[in-house]
């Protein structure tokens, strides 16, 4: 059963130094507040995992929390590049960042394999690209029935997963809707999980398109209204596109980033 706790306590219980951790969200419901708490708690040596590392990952990388990034697309959606990510990859600032790079289809299937308790997943992917030359864990696999050669990728098992959702009930059952991405898979792939929610309610009224994660697969729930800002929570808030634009400016040089970072702590 999930424990309902304040954000700082929940983060300290779930995200530890050296963890392989995903803060998932596909443009929608990105757990920014939890990410900022990880920065405040000074976590180090994280292997950050995400299909679409965006501004929150740029912030975690710039703050020196990460040693490795496992990902498939790293950018500031609709704006451009992630400057802290680039600075880490190109110049090793503030620390070098190891990369493990996949395609979206590969990453999604790696989460599915982990959520399914399988050691690997099979897909039609990566064929003819240079990705397998740079990423060790992409392997050919032969169909035992047809002889066709496909691609295998290993399960993406996580120490911890952090997501944001619209609601939880008092027992810790979690409900999210709108674009739900790979959040269910990330939670099911993780040993420890934390869900920040817009609000805790008495009862989760059924909703079209809603995903419900039962309390017994969630470890911590923290009530953090607007915890996805500047991303959004469908039916609660809209995306703060200005923030994403401003981030381009803030993150461009190390000095303005440092000033921003002092504001978080």
């Amino acid at each position, binding site marked *: 059963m999930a424990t309902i706790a304040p954000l700082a306590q929940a983060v300290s219980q779930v995200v530890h130094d050296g963890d392989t951790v995903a803060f998932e969200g*596909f*443009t*929608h419901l990105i757990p920014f507040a939890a990410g900022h708490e990880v920065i405040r708690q000074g976590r180090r040596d994280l292997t950050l995992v995400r*299909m*679409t590392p965006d501004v929150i990952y740029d912030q975690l990388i710039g703050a020196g929390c990460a040693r490795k990034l496992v*990902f*498939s*697309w*790293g*950018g500031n*959606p*609709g704006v451009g*590049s*992630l400057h802290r*990510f*680039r600075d880490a*990859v*190109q110049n090793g600032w503030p620390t070098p960042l190891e990369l493990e*790079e*996949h*395609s*979206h*289809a590969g990453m*999604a*299937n790696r*989460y*599915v394999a982990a959520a399914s308790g399988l050691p690997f997943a099979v*897909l*039609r*992917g*990566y*064929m*003819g*690209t*240079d*990705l397998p*030359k*740079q990423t060790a864990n992409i392997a050919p696999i032969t169909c035992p029935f047809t002889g*066709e*050669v496909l691609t295998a990728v290993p399960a993406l098992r996580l120490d911890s997963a952090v997501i944001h959702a619209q609601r939880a009930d008092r027992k810790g059952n979690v409900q999210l809707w*709108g*674009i*739900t*991405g*790979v959040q*269910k*898979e990330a939670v099911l792939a993780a040993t420890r999980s934390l869900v920040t929610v817009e609000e805790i309610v008495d009862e989760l009224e059924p909703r079209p*398109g809603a*995903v419900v994660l039962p309390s017994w697969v969630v470890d911590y729930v923290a009530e953090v209204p607007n915890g996805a800002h500047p991303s*959004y929570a*469908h039916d609660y808030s*809209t*995306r703060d*596109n200005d923030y994403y634009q401003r981030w381009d400016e803030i993150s461009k040089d190390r000095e303005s980033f440092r000033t921003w970072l002092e504001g978080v702590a």
Partner: protein
Amino acid sequence: MMTVAAARALTDGSVCFVGIGLPSTAANLARRTHAPDLVLVYESGTIGSKPATLPLSIGDGVLADSADSLVSVPEIFNYWLQPGRVDVGFLGAAQLDRFGNINTTVIGDDYRDPKVRLPGAGGAPEIAASCREVFMIVRQSPRAFVERVDFVTSLGFGTGKGDRERLGLKGRGPQLVITDLGVLRPDPDTCELTLTQLHPGVDLATAKAKTGWDLRVSPDLVTTERPTDQELAALRDLTA
């Protein structure tokens, strides 16, 4: 002109896998002009989105609210893209070579120490592999249109005709490259991208100068028809 040309290429009733930016604008323009039944699929999991305003990201709420069906990200790749159900995949590129191979990963020869680190693959490798056809929208310049891409993020025709078939890829690969200067199509015999169309007011010398390889030109080179008033109005409406 690039957006209008791209929109025109989309057939009504076809299913289109759309990335954000110009592809999304073009697909939505097509829906508002000649292709009202165009089916838009976004990798965030929205199938049949009919956004009233242009989405700023592929995860915008407007895409979810207006979709016929909303599915998870694993499902969109596994059940919808991978089996070849999508007619057209729309892609951009930082670099593109004469055989339509795409780079969105790194600029420079050394992956471990790149000159420029780009966002990476995203959905593109499997879009390029599995859609029946791939349409590309790329601004033409010698830096973007290169002899050989520094990194093959997504496969076009590899080293030429027959490579896709040897790898077992089902889609036909890049069939159309729409630029700010004109349109390129693969030569049926060699799969080399060949200029088949120039936009109004663009001369051939410019197109050649803005291409980093010795650009082949179709003997049947034509000029793109000017945007109609209806197209321009719809585009203004969409981007207002």
